[in-house]
């Protein structure tokens, strides 16, 4: 006994070797496409490869030392070839992200790839949105320095990723933030919370244009303020950018500007959030000729609600980077138990309103048309809304537990959608404001009403059935659509789903198609397998106000995700 105890004690005293930790994740998406003459009569969307697949793996190594912390990582990506609707520039394979980061002496240093954001992102945000196919990672150096608590500095330098190469522009930026509650002892216990920050980003891109004197160095700066008191918080950021002629703005030399202000308030049983945004010529990329999702240096947050239900999400709003004025108001109420609306078990009610309009534009002089290349383009005034409505969305959601085992949610949507600007199944969109101002009918507004009823029935322990009944009603675009979804889950491993979308109201009788889809998923540990088979209708997929068109297809898809 004594010997055993002694041995245990010795073991306990021997320090564990510090090898650090390695973790990562993996994802694969593969689709076998089927030729579907009904869905795609001319076969224009059917890929020659028939099977398209793409995947990636992240590996992250971390080790904490007595002096600080070190992290290193890499990502391998493979697109053979990109799935339908994904940006085709991703074709190929390679290590697209690698970095080394260490933290010591209040200094945080990263070399290699990194993502960064200053404030709300109006002058700088690099990020990855894999579902969209957006990755504008920096490749360079980042320094973060905290000289004293409550005072934060960041500096960045590098170039951005575009597919499997880097953009031509060099990005430089610095950000400073002060948090008074952390900085000053006298503010530490205050109920008022206050922080403010300043940021500046610039790019350098060589100019060799025979027509224009292009700026090679373009800078943008922003100031922000955050205030909080009990359940109230207010954040506002204002940005300015100097002349930045680009493909986005049609090579006008007007400075850009923008502001976004959000207010949130929460109290017992009640929540409110409001946002107002004004954007004028704030596209900011590290290549003046870039398009699609390429090389964005900044991020213009959306002020519209992101819908997850399939039918309302056919009409999402994409941020108009050259100019928009947007407003969003959202109220949420917790309905108390034993009340008229809340019933025996209580519920919730949500109201949301959002809109987006053009900004007012006037010619710079009598001889210059609005948006004319090589000029200042137009004049505008801060917060002056234009005459074109891009989008409006009013939705009301009511959720309530009808029994111990059954919860229901009903949501109504009323959407006004400018197809001429935003595009749809029947309108390629992309018109500029001038075309619509000259002929308002070109806006091709779609007026949409939609209702979704969702139910969740807990049949027995670990077994549940979720269903959705959706109806979308419009006289424009592809007309009325109905949808039914049934999803059966056996926790924690299995789920099975069947759905059908029927475009019964399409004005073109040959397009009154059904879009059936079968899905099954299996989870084991941290690995998930999912199989889908069926039709997908053409749609617009958006994340954070940035959208891509997804073509119609019939396919069998396999998705595998795994983490360790």
């Amino acid at each position, binding site marked *: 006994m004594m010997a055993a105890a002694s041995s245990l004690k010795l073991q306990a005293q021997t320090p564990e070797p510090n090898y650090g930790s390695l973790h990562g994740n993996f994802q694969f998406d593969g689709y076998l496409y089927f030729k579907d003459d009904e869905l795609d009569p001319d076969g224009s969307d059917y890929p020659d490869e028939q099977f398209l697949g793409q995947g990636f793996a992240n590996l992250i190594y971390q080790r904490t030392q007595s002096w600080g912390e070190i992290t290193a990582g890499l990502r391998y990506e493979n697109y053979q070839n990109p799935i339908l609707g994904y940006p085709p520039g991703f074709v*190929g394979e390679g290590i697209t992200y690698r970095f080394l980061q260490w933290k010591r002496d209040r200094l945080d240093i990263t070399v290699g790839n990194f993502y960064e954001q200053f404030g709300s992102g109006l002058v700088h945000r690099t990020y990855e949105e894999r579902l969209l196919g957006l990755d504008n990672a920096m490749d360079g150096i980042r320094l973060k320095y905290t000289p004293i608590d409550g005072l934060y500095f960041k500096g960045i330098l590098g170039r951005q990723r575009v597919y499997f190469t880097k953009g031509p522009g060099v990005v430089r930026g610095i950000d400073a933030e002060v948090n008074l509650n952390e900085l000053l002892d006298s503010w530490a216990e205050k109920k008022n919370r206050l922080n403010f920050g300043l940021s500046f980003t610039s790019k350098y891109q060589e100019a060799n244009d*025979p027509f224009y004197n292009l700026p090679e160095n373009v800078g943008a700066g922003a100031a922000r303020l955050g205030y909080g008191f009990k359940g109230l918080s207010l954040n506002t950021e204002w940005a300015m950018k100097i002349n930045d002629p680009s493909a986005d703005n049609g090579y006008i030399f007007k400075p850009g500007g923008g502001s976004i202000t959000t207010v949130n308030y929460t109290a017992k049983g009640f929540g409110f959030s409001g946002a107002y945004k004004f954007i004028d010529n704030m596209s900011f990329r590290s290549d003046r000729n870039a398009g699609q999702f390429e090389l964005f240096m900044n991020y213009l947050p959306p002020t519209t609600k992101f819908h997850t239900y399939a039918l309302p999400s056919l009409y999402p709003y994409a941020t108009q980077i050259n100019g928009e004025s947007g407003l969003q108001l959202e109220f949420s109420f917790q309905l108390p138990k034993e009340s008229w609306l809340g019933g025996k078990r209580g519920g919730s009610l949500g109201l949301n309103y959002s809109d987006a309009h053009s900004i007012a534009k006037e010619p710079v002089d009598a001889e210059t048309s609005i948006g004319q290349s090589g000029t200042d383009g137009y004049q505008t005034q801060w917060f002056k809304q234009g005459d074109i409505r891009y989008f409006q969305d009013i939705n009301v959601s009511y959720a309530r537990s009808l029994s111990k085992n059954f919860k229901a949610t009903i949501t109504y949507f009323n959407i006004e959608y400018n197809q001429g600007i935003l595009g749809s199944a029947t309108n390629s969109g*992309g018109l500029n404001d001038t075309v619509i101002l000259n002929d308002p009918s070109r806006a091709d507004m779609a007026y949409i009403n939609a209702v979704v009823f969702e139910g969740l029935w807990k049949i027995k322990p670990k077994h549940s059935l979720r269903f959705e009944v959706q109806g979308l009603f419009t006289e424009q675009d592809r007309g009325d659509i109905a949808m039914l979804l049934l999803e059966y889950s056996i926790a924690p491993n299995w789920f099975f789903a069947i759905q059908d979308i029927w475009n019964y109201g399409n004005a073109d009788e040959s397009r009154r198609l059904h879009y059936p889809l079968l899905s099954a998923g299996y989870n084991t540990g941290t690995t998930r397998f999912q199989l889908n088979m069926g039709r997908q209708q053409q749609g617009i997929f958006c994340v954070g106000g940035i959208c891509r068109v997804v073509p119609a297809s019939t396919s069998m898809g396999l998705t595998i995700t795994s983490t360790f």
Partner: protein
Amino acid sequence: MKNLFAPSLIVLLLATIGCDYIDQPLKTGVLPPPDTTQVLRKALIEDFTGHRCKNCPKASKEIARIDSLLPGRSIAVAIHAGSDAFTAPDPTNGYPTEFRTPEGNLLQQFFRVSFQPAGMVSRLDYTASGVAQLKYYTSWPSLVSQINQEVAELKIEINGDYEPSNRLLSATVQSTLLSQSNRDLYLCLWLCESGIVAPQLQPDDTRDPDYVHNNVFRTSLNSAFGQQIASGGATGEQINTSFSYFVPSAYTAENCKLVVFVYDNATQEVLQAEEVSLDSL
């Protein structure tokens, strides 16, 4: 305060170096004439386009604008290839013309052209992965200007004859190396036609039934990717390539031009290009 000194200095430095304010956006004055003491590179613009692509006329206008400012310094080819939604005939909606060609389709697939308008300028930046070689039309003026300032590695001279009576085109292309080369050189001979009046979708979504299509790629005389003419060579080495071709009657010969270019098979980069109209031969 010592801790704040370095960050403050960086902020001030960045703020002062980060901005070029432009008072005079348009370049004024006459461009200096090209250096005639040396052979300079001409740029090849391969514009992948479609008659149902609404933004494609913008790219065509850009080509005309470049040629007006830098006449004869670039050679444009409009290749109708890519998504059927942009390029396929659609007689029902008033787009009956078939502009697509087998060679154009091969080029579109090889260079992974998946959006339009997209172009290559002398096939710069070609990579096996990705689409760095595809350039938006707004970048073409800068790239043409940049290429025009470079000394060419080789010179191309076209001598020949076009006989209207039997529509026979006979020519010899002389490629002269202006510096020692270890490149795998390929020569392409393309026939293009201008002045074709046919409908084109416009940027405002209207249809222009009388749109004039220029520089339309019709065919390649020696396959889509041309033929090997040399694998390295010494300065001054000349490579002659002779050919003859009956111009199909479907093409209006007086509106046709012969486009000749040499590229490096390893990088795909076009080293030099020339063009000649058939009626000037």
